[in-house]
């Protein structure tokens, strides 16, 4: 176990474990409560696998009512609750504590309503991101947010983390595509926020819930905005001999009025790894941009011509157009295999900071310098259109101290993101990973008001403990809550 501290479990809760499990079994179907240590171990971590701790029990409800019943028991017995979707969080957002009950949304799998006349879909939140778009395909619609874990990740997790994806430059992130939510509060009370109308009508509580990382409640059903499928999409690949000029190209494309659906960036370290792994035929250069545009064939041609003109003025080493689906796939092939390719080079941690687009070249240069200082290699592959960077820090998990060095390097990069006007996390969430850096982005009072908001929803501080807020900052809130 390395750098990030978790509070020690409450011995009184551990001592009452049998009663807690019995109380949960009383109100839930037999197969919905897991307490056998052999089985709870499957829930000991999410995708931040360096941190593990089996929970006291796992609850797998099938309905909002069952989630509410479990929440009510945990509230009455003062047991911490860790909400969990598919467990794909890279930030430790679903890491349990030993004295917590996991309430997972995995079995909430119903698609409740597809209404193309009103351009919405209503689902239980355990459905996976990809399956939502798959459901909509026959009707010619899709759901826009597309995080790279979309095959596995659930809508519940997407809402909790306000997930993005490669296409959010044009379509926005989860919060821009969420219209309504059924939320189970810590007391077990169920509230409906938003709906099929284009609200909000009072305070935007749904907007607050989205991205709150399970701190305020559990979303069991969601009304999502759906969009008609574009007629077509085509990427171009542009190679540059410097990071700076690639960054300039991004800014000029954005200023031109062409709004691509995605602008992806890969640096030389990433390009070499990808070439060795996927043989995508990428140019050997300092930086590659993949720019994707949508529309009819004529619209696409027009937009690509504009991009060619813009990029041409910056002397790219290569400008590669895709003329058909196979060529388009070839352009995306390397980008999509980037994480797998990096995995072949060794262990890595994937960061997720955002910087203003104009600061991309400077940030990349500084990351290079930090890489030399820390003696660890880093690759950059990210969503350039919105400045959302994903530096991958390579390390050797079998080498004592290497993970800690990688984490320290990562923290330096995230501090750099804040220093240049960006933020600690663009789409992965704070979880435990960035919890102790929150003071870098927010002054004490700025964090206090966020904790006051949490306190209004969760006065006993039972929901997703030890996440998002630094433990020292939240200590007085937690102590006060325990005394209530």
């Amino acid at each position: 176990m390395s750098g990030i501290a978790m509070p020690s479990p409450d011995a009184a809760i551990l001592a009452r474990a049998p009663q807690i499990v019995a109380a949960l079994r009383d109100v839930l179907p037999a197969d919905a409560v897991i307490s056998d240590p052999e089985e709870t171990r499957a829930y000991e971590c999410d995708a931040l696998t360096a941190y593990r701790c089996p929970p006291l029990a796992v609850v797998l409800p099938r309905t909002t009512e069952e989630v509410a019943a479990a929440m009510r028991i945990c509230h009455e017995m003062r047991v911490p609750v860790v909400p969990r979707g598919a467990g794909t969080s890279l930030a430790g957002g679903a890491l349990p504590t030993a004295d917590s009950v996991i309430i997972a949304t995995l079995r909430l799998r119903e698609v409740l309503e597809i209404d193309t006349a009103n351009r919405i879909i209503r689902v239980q939140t355990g459905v996976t991101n990809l399956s939502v778009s798959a459901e909509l395909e026959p009707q010619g619609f899709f759901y826009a947010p597309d995080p790279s874990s979309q095959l596995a990740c659930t809508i519940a997790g997407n809402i909790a983390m306000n997930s993005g994806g490669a296409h959010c430059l044009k379509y926005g992130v989860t919060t821009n595509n969420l219209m309504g939510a059924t939320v189970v509060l810590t007391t077990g009370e169920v509230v409906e926020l938003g709906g099929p109308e284009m609200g909000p009508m009072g305070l935007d509580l749904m907007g607050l819930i989205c991205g709150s990382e399970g701190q305020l409640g559990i979303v069991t059903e969601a009304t999502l905005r759906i969009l008609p499928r574009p007629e077509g999409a085509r990427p171009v690949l542009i190679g540059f001999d410097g990071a700076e000029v690639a960054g300039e190209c991004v800014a000029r494309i954005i200023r031109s009025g062409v709004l691509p659906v995605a602008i992806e960036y890969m640096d030389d370290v990433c390009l070499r790894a990808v070439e060795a792994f996927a043989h995508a035929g990428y140019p050997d250069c300092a930086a590659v941009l993949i720019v994707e545009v949508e529309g009819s064939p004529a619209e696409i041609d027009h937009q690509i011509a504009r991009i060619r003109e813009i990029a041409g003025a910056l002397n790219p080493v290569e400008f590669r157009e895709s003329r058909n689906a196979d060529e388009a796939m070839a352009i995306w092939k390397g980008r999509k295999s980037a994480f797998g390719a990096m995995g072949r080079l060794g262990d890595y941690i994937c960061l997720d900071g955002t910087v203003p687009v104009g600061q991309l070249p400077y940030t990349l240069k500084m990351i290079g310098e930090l890489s030399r200082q820390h003696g660890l290699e880093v690759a950059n592959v990210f969503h350039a259109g919105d400045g959302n960077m994903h530096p991958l820090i390579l390390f050797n998990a079998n080498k004592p101290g290497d993970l800690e060095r990688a984490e320290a390097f990562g923290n330096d990069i995230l501090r750099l993101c804040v220093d240049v006007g960006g933020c600690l996390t663009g789409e992965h969430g704070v979880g435990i990973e960035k919890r102790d850096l929150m003071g870098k982005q927010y002054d004490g009072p700025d964090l206090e008001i966020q904790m006051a908001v949490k306190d209004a929803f969760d006065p006993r501080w039972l929901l997703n403990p030890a996440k998002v807020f630094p433990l020292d900052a939240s200590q007085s809130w937690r102590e006060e809550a325990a005394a209530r």
Partner: protein
Amino acid sequence: MTPDNPSGAGLSPASEAELAALIAERFAARLPLRIAGGGTRVETGAVPGELMSTAAIGGVVTYEPGEMTLIARAGTPLDQIRAMLAAEGQALAFEPADMRGVLGRNGTPTIGGVVAANASGPRRLLAGACRDHLLGVRFVDGQGRVLKNGGRVMKNVTGLDLGKLFCGAHGTLGVLTEVALKTLPHLPDRCTLGFHGVTVEEAVAIFSAALATPFEVSGAAFRDGSAWLRVEGLGPQMTYRRDRLLALLAPREAEVLDDAATLALWPELRDLAHFAGADAPLWRVLVKPSDAPAAARALQALGGEASLDWGGGLVWYCGPGTAQAVRQVAPHATLVRRGGLDGPAFPPEAPAVARLSAGLRHRFDPAGILNPGLMDS
């Protein structure tokens, strides 16, 4: 001049620090404040307390067209921002309305007021509301503390998103001093398809068909028997979209308005020119688009006129009827122009939601001095 027009009188702190000191003082004395930007969007006449405007806390902090980012102090005039963005070929994509005509005001709309009201015009249909373009806020809470949330970048999930709460809170949680917004390229080519002599049912059917296409219709509004679709694009994109939509909706006859006529029509639809200069109550009703025809007919049965925006998702009703009668047919109705009606302007919330909202207000404004009762009476 109307009694609650802030350009005439009241407090007008010149800086965030002055504003913070003023609120701290009012917090200590438990004295309410009636908060406004330019005082052009919301009728706050029934709110107790001294009038206070942020109009003097103005100025653009930074505008980066290549990053599509604008940061401005709350009192910055909306027109100044529009002109600055237009010079770079950009715009606030959510197209906030100018409500002066409808409310009979002569103040200067501010960007802080736009955000506080979540003001979003016809293009919301495609581009989202003000809330979807808000990147960060600075504000003074009800105790006089200067706080911030969010930032200036488009992808940011660091901590709780308080900006969403402030967008549409009408100054009840805190007083905005600075907002960061996403700007978007202003598409250079546009036209409008007009369908005349249609019923409200036919209008919503036209909208529904057009909005199920990938042609990115950026306005779908209905008034006086005419349904309007706005089509925008980059060069040949616009004409292609226009022709595809005309083919889809044939054999319905459509009038095609050119660029200039389109630029003239949509601000009128946005600003509700058809309901300006009148005194009758004006209601804003949010519905599921497919429910719009029934809602519009039920409202018109009360004796007034209805128009639609957002493809039917927004029904405006101007005319007689008690608040009770209007809310009976349209539970989600907000009273925008009182026209002599008393009572709460905002629709009632479900008890559990109202309790959460009250809990939040209490934490941001423990003494209840910021626009008390405006949203929650």
